[in-house]
C-alpha cells in the first residue's frame, strides 16, 4: 500500500510504499526518523507509533523541535 507522508521538519511530502498492517514505527524506520523527533498525526488525529496504517491514509509527522 502507498501512504502519503508530510514531514514538517523538511517541509516535504513523500509517498511511501508499506506492507499491509505496518504501523507508524515501521514507517519512521523506513524514513530514518527517530520516534522521539516527531508526533504522528493520522487524518488530523494524534496517534502513537503503534498505530497501524491503512491504505490511503495521510500521515503528518509534526516536528517536536520548535525553533533553533
Amino acid at each position, binding site marked *: 500500500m502507498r501512504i502519503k507522508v508530510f514531514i514538517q521538519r523538511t517541509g516535504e511530502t513523500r509517498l511511501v510504499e508499506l506492507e499491509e498492517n505496518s504501523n507508524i514505527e515501521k514507517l519512521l524506520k523506513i524514513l530514518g526518523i527517530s*520516534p522521539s523527533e516527531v508526533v504522528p498525526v493520522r487524518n488530523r488525529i494524534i496517534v502513537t507509533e503503534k498505530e497501524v496504517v491503512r491504505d490511503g491514509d495521510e500521515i503528518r509527522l509534526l516536528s*517536536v523541535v520548535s*525553533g*533553533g
Partner: protein
Amino acid sequence: MTCEDCEKRGVYISLSGKSLCSRHFKRYFEEKVMRTIRKYDLLGYGEKILVACSGGKDSTVLLNFLWNLVKKKRESLAAIAVDEGIAGYRDVKLKGLVKFCEEREIPLHVYSFKEYYGFTLDEAVKISKDNNLGFKPCYICGVLRRNLINNVARELGFSKVATGHNLDDEAQTILMNYLRGNPSLLARLGPKTGVVSDESFVQRVKPFYFCTEKEDTIYSLVNSIEVDFVQCPYHVENYRLEIRDFLNRLESIIPGVKHSLVNNFLKILPLLKRDFSASKIRRCEVCGNPSARNVCRVCMIKMRMTPFLGGREW
C-alpha cells in the same frame, strides 16, 4: 493502541510502554511538572515569576501552564520576550506570542537587541564574520539574551525567571559540556540554575526539566496551543544540532537514554557543585557584575564589537 486507563484512543506511549489518551496524558504531564516544582522548590508562594518566552512551543506551553497555575494570583506572573533581530524568524514567532498573550490578557514585556544594545543579532553576526571576531551566532544571542532577561527581571522585581527548557535540552547541554571538558559549566546546570547566589542574579528555574520535547509537543497539541513552525536561520551553525541528532539516534536504539543521562547527571551534580563552583564570587573588571572570568562574556562581546559599530552607542 487504546489508553490503558480508559480505552480511548492513545496519543502517547510512556517509556514503560503505557498508552495514554489525551485526557490521561494531560494529567500525567501536569503531575510530572508539579512534582518537579515541589521536589526542587522551583516556585514558592508569593513569588513573582517572569516567564522567558521565545514564541516557540516549549515556552508558550510553559506560560500557559503557569498562567493556569497562578489563576488566583495573576499579578504574580508576566512574560518577557526578546526580539534579537533575526529577520524572517523572531518577528514571526513574536507575532504569535503577542496574540497568545492578548487573548489571555497575560502581561508581556518585549525588548529588542536594537534598543537595548544598539544592534540586531543579524548585524552582530555580520560584524563578527566580516572582522573574524570568532563569535558564533548562538553564543552572541545566548549571552546577550540571558543578560537582558536577567537585568529586566531584577529591575522589575521578579524573584524567578522560568524557562521552557526540557529534558532534551538538558541532555544535550550535559553531553556538550562533557565533550568540551567543561565541569564548571556542568556545575551550573540542573532544574534551578546558578552556582552562586548573588543579588544581581535572578534565579532561573525549569519546570519542564523532566518533560521530553515530544511530551511538550503533544501537550501543546491536546491543549490546542498553536505555534508556527519556523526554524532559526542560524540553527545550522549550532553544535547543539549535531548533539541533538546524535541523542535522538541513540534514543531509537536505547529507549530512555536521555532520561538516564539527565538522572545520572543529577546524582553527581552535588559533587560537581562542591568541586567546581567558584568558592569566591569574582567581579567583572569592566561592569562589576559577578563573573567566572576577569571580564564577563557580555563585556567581552561589547569590547570586541564596539570598534565596528561605527560610533553607535552600545
